């Protein structure tokens, strides 16, 4: 049994407008557990703009600034500047954008903000398409996905943009991936990000969307976990754009992840092999970047995996 050391308080109110099984809601739940009440959240247009509640309700127990789609990076910078001018350097500014607001329309603003090394935590909760508008493809949509704008045989034929690498290339103090299926790791990363004041921190969270991914609402955590276990979404950290730390070593076949999702059900065995190849390539590239620096936790995970496969064989 994995023993979790999780802060007890929640800063989300029940009655919010998230769909059943919403991964993005869980992402926020865990993030705020780590960041606490001294947090201001900036939310550009996204599912979270709805989840947070219609007038006059609020789903969050921290202040929220909802903003236009492209503005997360700049708006967070503005809040930070204003808080600093008011002498409040203790409050964390959390920019909370979806993949559209990060990979696509919000990319310029985010790039500008992190280039200025703004003292904010920038989060992308990634559900890999424009879910709020009815599942249209974004530049975060992975190869092989069917969406309403990549329908039928026109399923997406290009790769998902690698956002952490793009952010790491800005040489920001901290960039990391996290998953709602690994709350302890996620919370730990947010606590780390919170403590690393004075510069830009970026956390990329995979947040499955039952509706958009064609999965049952009870499977969102399970599938987020599979994404990590198959190396489709590796958990890792990059400090100063240089020092890579792998937090988990996956190894399950990608097929395990693909076959349980409606958005991939059209893929043939050959398509899956191709995806496996891409995932392996990316993983090797990442491992290369991690170089000789191996996180002890990752080493442990590898040992456990070997032990498990040995146990299976016998």
């Amino acid at each position, binding site marked *: *049994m*994995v023993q*979790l050391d*999780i802060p007890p308080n*929640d800063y*989300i*109110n*029940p*009655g*919010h*407008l*998230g*769909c*059943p*099984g*919403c991964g993005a*809601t*869980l992402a926020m*739940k865990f993030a705020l557990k780590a960041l606490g009440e001294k947090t201001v959240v900036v939310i550009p247009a996204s599912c979270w703009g709805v989840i947070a*509640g219609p*007038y*006059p*309700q*609020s*789903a969050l127990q921290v202040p929220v600034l909802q903003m236009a789609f492209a503005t997360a990076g700049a708006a967070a910078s503005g809040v930070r500047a204003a808080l600093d001018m008011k002498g409040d350097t203790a409050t964390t500014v959390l920019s909370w954008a979806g993949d559209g607001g990060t990979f696509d329309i919000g990319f310029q603003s985010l790039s500008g903000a992190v280039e200025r090394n703004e003292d904010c935590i920038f989060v992308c909760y990634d559900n890999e398409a424009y879910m709020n508008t009815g599942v249209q493809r974004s530049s975060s949509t992975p190869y092989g996905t069917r969406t309403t704008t990549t329908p039928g045989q026109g399923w997406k034929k290009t790769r998902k943009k690698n956002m952490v690498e793009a952010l790491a290339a800005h040489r920001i103090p901290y960039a990391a991936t996290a998953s709602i*299926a690994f*709350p302890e790791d996620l919370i730990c990363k947010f606590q780390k990000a919170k403590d690393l004041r004075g510069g830009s921190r970026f956390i990329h969270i995979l947040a499955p969307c*039952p509706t958009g991914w064609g999965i*049952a*609402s*009870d*499977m*969102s*955590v*399970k599938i987020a*976990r599979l994404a990590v*276990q198959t190396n489709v979404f590796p958990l890792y950290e990059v400090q100063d754009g240089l020092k890579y730390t792998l937090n988990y070593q996956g190894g399950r076949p990608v097929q395990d992840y693909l076959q349980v999702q409606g958005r991939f059900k059209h893929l043939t065995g050959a398509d899956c092999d191709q995806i496996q190849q891409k995932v392996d390539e990316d993983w090797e590239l990442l491992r290369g970047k991690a170089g000789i620096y191996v996180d002890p936790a990752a080493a442990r995970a590898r040992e*456990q995996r070997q*032990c*498990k496969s*040995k*146990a299976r064989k016998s």
Partner: protein
Amino acid sequence: MAPQEAFVDPVPLFVPCSRTSTEVNKTGSWRYLRPTYTEKTAPCGAACPAGEDIARIAMLASRGLFQEAWETILQENPFPAVCGRVCFHPCEGACNRAQLDEPIAIHQLERFLGDTALAAGTQAAVNERSAQGRKAAVVGAGPAGLAAAFFLTRLGFTCEVFEAQPEPGGLLRWGIPAYRLPKEVLQGEIKRIENRGVKILCQTPVTARTLEKIKARNDALFIAGGYGRPIRLNIPGGEMACDGLSFLAQIRSPATFAISGTAAVIGGGNTALDVARTLLRRGVEPVLVYRRRRQDMPAFAPEVDMALKEGIKIKELSAPIRIAQDPNDPESFPLNYELTLQKMKVSSTAINGRARVIPDGNKIETLRVQGVFTAIGAEGDNLGDFPPGANQKHLELSHCQMALQDLPVIWGGDLATPVKSVTHAIASGKQAAIALDTLFAEGWDAVATRLSACRIGSGPTVSMAAYLGGDRERRSARVVTFDEINADYFHPRARVTPVTLDVEQRLPSFAEIEQTLVTGAAREEATRCFNCGICNACDNCRLFCPEMAVAVENTARRINLDYCKGCGICVVECPRNAMVLEEETP
């Protein structure tokens, strides 16, 4: 506003800015599936003849709550330290963890808890009723009789146990060698039963005549005299063989023992193995002679493995046909015998799934041995008109036979159990206690129903905790399978290995082969348990609830149905299948 403000009409400011919480939305109305906390039955508990709540025992032990864990055993079984040693632990065979790595070392854990309690000398706080003025007599102070007395006492009966031997324990005392069960352990656990008020009258054999007197003084009778009479080997020279059980009893006392060289032990059960292994410790080279194949031996597999490891030879497919004194050397000491064996072979037809063996032509083998021991079974006395015939009102239960004579009589233990084991004997005593209590409270017709209601899983095992009411009674009888465990939460980890004496260390003495686990190892092993089907307060349901709809109230979790949207993540992420998702009823 500015102090010099001269305007009286304020500027209106109606902006999209929250002033209340989303808690006004009762999103529970979206739900069409409802999660509930429904504890289920762990396969280990269902496989345990005594119905121990192993999943909970391991959960408590993993938290270091050893006293509570031990008390949970005592709810169902008064002999943890004994059973931790001698039970053949079918629980481990059923353990779901075996499909991930290896089963939990449940018997080691039970033994640790039993020994820890014995060392501390504590009494268990278990469910019990106050005295109700009824008296029950128990014949036989073996595991069945003592268990019956223990459970009857808890149900408010006053109990007297009659034992023919000078000391209580039955087969546990006389039939199991010390290297498997040290005397002090047995004494300690029996003492604890006596401390609950059970009176054990030793050297008091019950005959047909004394039985009438006992009946007159009591309201009910439980007969568990065991299989005291060994079955003799019915071949020419059979009278020259020693009875194995008597040998095991004798060896307990420092009586003279005069044999050396080689001895044949005839039989394939646990007693045969115990005899062989005891002989080995007395410097004799035993040969086990069994008429079927090794895999057909009724002895428990781990015991066979141990025996082989110690160097005991097994001559399978060999049926004794004659014993004779060595004609060439009639005066030697010790005496030499010729044991003639008919070689057997497997017939193509099987009976009840068990291979049938038939003589293999005229193949004969002759063994030259200095002793022949038999362990081919035993039988009981038909005390109290056993088995009950059609002339009496009677009921055949899974572990007992029950009849209504001038007072209710139940036969249990080896006389009535499907498997002749210590734990089945204990189960039999418990079943008898519940049956008697139900009989007095609700009448004859309620007995079968009541027993069925407190079964664990779908098997015959009954639970005293369930009978007395409580959490366990509410548990679903559905047995959790490995597929229903969320294995993502469990990583392969080696099973604990107890400290074991080397073969060289074992043979010169009757010291216990396996040592009791140390505290740290026991607790560590307990944490390997999946706790199948029961909530161990891991809090995953609350952690992963996207609706903040799981609350903890007095350590129990509750779903706030005002807000639960029925996504079902809590059910899927429950590592141990202690929840279910059901269709919402409108």
